């Protein structure tokens, strides 16, 4: 990051200032009056969780434009296709405007507009009631998004540790745990993939470019255009696969076979980084023994990738070690053995010696912004629910859902759902709904009338990221980054930021000691002071990086620490064995589709984030609904034409209630169909998105749980196509 940073304010205001000199020679500028001078406030994007830095330009107290903040590590002055459309959320007329109480039923709501006072009193009463009847641990928080930190703080103060996030058990949990078991650390978010300096990159799934995680896409392209070779395993020619030197259209659910074959080849031919392994790793012998049967020919039969290709790539990887990155991906809840698959990737990474090496996985910078000083201790409480999953790093969303239904390990009766559309996010919606029905309290804090809000007793409308301050955010990458969100305008309607909502709620519940600050800026400034950061500078720049805290690569002075039981990289994991799991990943065959059925494969639209952007008027204008991708040959067999609308029926006979448009393509294997996740909205309040396309959630009635950490694997869904006029 050695680039000379531009003075963004100067540039941004130059771009914005309206010239008085007419551009046109012809007609007078009679009515082109320049508007009031603009103001600029730094912020970061919340259309996904990458949180790229941006600058909001406001005129007359309204945000009129957002642009990337060049000082941001996660964005480098760029916003992705979604981020650029932030105003499509800010000014969505469908937004939640007032606190509302549900006077009807959950799922069939009748909304009554109430004051904040009334809404928060309602919540406080219910929370107190649950605490008395079941204890505070009976309340759980599901949160996904920046404002969630205040809710987590609130919940801890209330006495519950059940703060869960779908980003663990529905997303990257298996990867994090797989790496944790191997290296004693997860690959982080933004991940520590050093693509920009890689000589060789392997992506397993990871459809970067469509998965538009900003700086990661930038790094990847930097790496490739600097000459890095690229391998992509994907049953579909993803955008990035089209840039690959080797695209391996692997049969879905068989990646593990290839990974194991690679491990075998590399060990057998002694292609691994010997010095690195002997210095930092244990278990090579056991590993060698365990993988001995995984020949390339065997893997080839399973994965439908030629053995020669598998061997060739193994050799290529070895040639470029240690400057190669075998990416752990991100969305990894695929087939139920996902932690083990991630372990296989981690093991390969270790064999290549690329953890802590240039072009591999860099070592994250250190740094810390201390918590607000002088807060009272949180009350003692039951530990959070992680189910029977010994390696869960966080409370597990689905364990909480189960607890509601079974009262095990203890009852759960209150849900606070912050910025997560659980109805679409967690597999098997029926189970989610059953759990919600049993609750004493269901609160949704959201910005839009999403599906989840229709199941709430009370809706607390949060203002969008462009209208609020949030907690200080830190990031440990190749630099230590501290970022701040500064509102570009006052909250519209009666929406309020989470810091305000939690503080007001705390007053009603006698928890105000945990919220002693006068207002948010007081809070932020105090935290900055404690960390030795100049608050005013941060407020002006939005992002400050502390490069001195970064030591990304292993050197004689900069030795890695592995937070595993053995303090070494564990190629063979004793702790797994002790818990009755495979100490080294093994191949498990997964269920295959019956004849006439396709495997449902899904991913991201580059222009949408899950369900949260489907109603965004700018993005909806470009991609209003998802399409069902199907291979040309299969389409021909089924008599499908481009643009036909079809429904899907899954292996359990569940039929989608909405329709999806057919897209015929050569980019996909014949044994699967593909679609973007997040569509098929089912909430009449979403005027643009409602009922458009199919939501993967409509057919994901079945899931497999990763026994190590509780992740819900959802790629074992098989569907039949039914034509509907």
């Amino acid at each position, binding site marked *: 990051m050695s680039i000379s940073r531009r003075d963004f304010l100067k540039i941004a205001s130059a771009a914005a200032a309206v010239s008085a000199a007419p551009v046109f020679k*012809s007609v007078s500028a009679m009515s082109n009056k320049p508007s009031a001078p603009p103001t600029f406030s730094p912020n970061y994007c919340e259309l996904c969780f990458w949180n790229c830095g941006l600058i909001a330009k406001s005129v007359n107290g309204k945000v009129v434009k957002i642009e990337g903040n060049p000082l941001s590590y996660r964005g480098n002055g760029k916003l992705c296709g979604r981020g650029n459309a932030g105003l499509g959320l800010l000014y969505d007329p469908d937004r939640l405007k007032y606190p509302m109480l549900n006077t009807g039923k959950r799922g069939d709501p009748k909304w009554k507009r109430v004051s904040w006072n009334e809404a928060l009193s309602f919540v406080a009463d219910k929370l107190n009631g649950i605490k008395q009847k079941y204890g505070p641990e009976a309340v759980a928080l599901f949160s996904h998004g920046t404002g969630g930190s205040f809710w987590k703080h609130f919940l801890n103060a209330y006495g519950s540790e059940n703060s869960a996030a779908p980003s663990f058990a529905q997303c990257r949990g298996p990867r994090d745990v797989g790496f944790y078991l191997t290296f004693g650390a997860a690959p982080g978010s933004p991940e520590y993939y050093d693509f920009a300096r890689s000589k060789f990159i392997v992506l397993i799934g990871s459809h970067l470019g469509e998965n538009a995680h900003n700086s990661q896409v930038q790094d990847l392209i930097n790496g490739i255009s600097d000459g890095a070779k690229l391998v992509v395993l994907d049953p579909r020619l993803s955008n990035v696969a089209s840039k690959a030197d080797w695209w391996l259209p692997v049969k879905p659910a068989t990646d593990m076979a290839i990974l194991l074959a690679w491990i075998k080849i590399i060990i057998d031919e002694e292609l691994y980084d010997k010095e690195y392994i002997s210095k930092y790793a244990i278990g090579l012998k056991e590993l060698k023994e365990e993988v001995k049967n995984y020949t390339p020919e065997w893997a080839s039969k399973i994965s439908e990738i030629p053995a020669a290709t598998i061997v060739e790539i193994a050799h290529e990887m070895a040639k470029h070690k240690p400057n190669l990155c075998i990416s752990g991906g991100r969305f990894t809840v695929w087939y139920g053995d996902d932690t083990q698959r991630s372990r296989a990737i981690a093991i390969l990474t270790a064999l290549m010696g690329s953890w802590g090496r240039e072009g591999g996985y860099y070592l994250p910078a250190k740094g810390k912004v201390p918590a607000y000083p002088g807060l009272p201790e949180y009350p003692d409480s039951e530990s959070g629910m992680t189910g029977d999953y010994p390696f869960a790093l966080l409370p597990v969303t689905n364990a909480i859902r189960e607890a509601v239904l079974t009262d095990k390990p203890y009852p759960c009766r209150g849900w606070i759902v912050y910025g997560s559309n659980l109805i679409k996010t967690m597999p098997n919606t029926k189970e989610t709904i059953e759990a919600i029905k049993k609750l004493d309290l269901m609160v949704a804090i959201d910005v839009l009338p999403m599906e989840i809000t229709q199941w709430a007793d009370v809706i607390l409308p949060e203002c969008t990221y462009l209208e609020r301050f949030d907690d200080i955010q830190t990031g440990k990458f190749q630099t230590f980054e501290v970022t701040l969100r500064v509102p570009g305008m006052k909250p519209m309607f009666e929406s309020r930021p989470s810091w305000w909502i939690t503080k007001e709620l705390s007053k009603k519940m006698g928890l105000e000691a945990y919220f002693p600050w006068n207002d948010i800026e007081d809070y932020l400034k105090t935290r900055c002071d404690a960390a030795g950061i100049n608050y005013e500078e941060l407020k002006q720049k939005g992002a400050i990086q502390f490069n001195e805290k970064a030591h990304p690569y292993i050197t004689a002075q900069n030795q890695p620490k592995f937070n595993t039981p053995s303090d070494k990289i564990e190629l063979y994991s004793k702790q797994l064995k002790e818990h009755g799991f495979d100490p080294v990943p093994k191949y498990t065959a997964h269920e295959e589709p019956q004849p006439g059925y396709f495997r449902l494969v899904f991913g991201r639209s580059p222009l949408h984030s899950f369900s949260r952007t489907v109603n965004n008027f700018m993005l909806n204008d*470009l*991609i*209003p609904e998802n399409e069902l991708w199907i291979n040309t040959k299969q389409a021909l067999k089924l008599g499908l034409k*481009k*643009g036909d609308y079809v429904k899907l029926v899954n292996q359990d006979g569940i039929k989608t209630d909405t329709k999806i448009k057919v897209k015929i393509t050569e980019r996909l294997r014949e044994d699967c169909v593909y679609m973007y996740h997040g569509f098929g909205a089912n909430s009449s309040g979403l005027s643009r998105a409602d009922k458009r396309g199919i939501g993967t959630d409509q057919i994901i009635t079945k899931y497999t749980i990763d026994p190590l950490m509780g992740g819900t694997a959802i790629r074992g869904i098989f569907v039949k196509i039914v034509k509907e006029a």
Partner: protein
Amino acid sequence: MTLLNMNLPDIADIKKVVTDILKGKGGLALNLSIIGIIMGIYALSRLLIEGHGAVTNTSSLVPWGVQISTYVYMVLLSTGCTFINFFGYMFYRKEYEMFGTRILFVGIFIAFAGMGALATELGRMDKMIYFLLSPQPKSPMWWMSVWYSIYVTLKLVELVNHKRGKHSDKLLWITFIVAIITYSNLGSVFGIVEQRAYYFGPLLPIYFLMLGFLTGAALSTIIASAHFYKSDTEFQNHVRPFRNSLRIGLGIAIVATFWRLVAGMYAQAEGYEIFKLTFMHTFFFELLFALAIPLVVSYFSTCQRCMIVICSFILITQFKIRTDLIVGGFKIPVFKAYSIPDIVSYMPSHVEFFVVIGAISAATFIYVFADKIGFFEGEEHIHG
């Protein structure tokens, strides 16, 4: 009444017709056209208040729709009338003369109505003044404004002449030539657009001219046939020039359409697939149904009513064909992304249809009204 040496109907006659209309006794044609005009005004006001985006189905993909095709069609009719007028005077003066003023009159007001339809298609009618202030001589569309102004002026002069009881063959010739230029210029508006295969080509202006002749013939035949005749012989006698023009018109239209189709089918360049795409339609609808059938029928059925039916049929089908031509240029999008389809379809909105109805009604109203107040009376024998 005489005004500026023109022989015009008396105020009393006009008053009478107006009171008739107000009493609802204007007759079917007038009443219908008044309803049509009201529809047109409604359409215009919605266009002005809500904007094109809200009420029309044209778009960036189909920038020109039925409003433009109405314009093209109506000026095509006008040109056709000028041709018929010219040929009538040149070759059949005796039989034709009594219709001269009518055809001239129709030619003028139908062009005005067409231009009205065109104006409603402009995104910013309020800026039309720039045609004067900021001319672009490279643009066929600018020349179109020039030539149509000249053309309409000439025709108006001719009309005034007629009303003064004079007729000048010299002016007839000039108008004829200007009409050719004007209308082929309109053809070139489309013909120069290299990217639109369906339009592009030096032959398009000629094709336009040929079809212009046909529709002009059809319209004037209706006008001539709608007249009162003492006997069928008299009718046959008077309608002969029109029927002959009509047959010639159909003949050349068939030839022109055929060769355009053949040329289009042979072309290989990008965008020309539109000809293959529309082949069946062009062949069966445009060639056989809309042209060949009326040609054949016109030999067997020659009664007064038959002629009106045949010609109405031609006018209606030609309107559809004009619209297909305009819209055909946009069927295959020049650039495809997001939800832009492989083949663009376009169906006019009701407001667009109302504009069409309004324009046709306005022209009809003026003609019928003029007829009722006796504008064309005493014009049967004008000598040059």
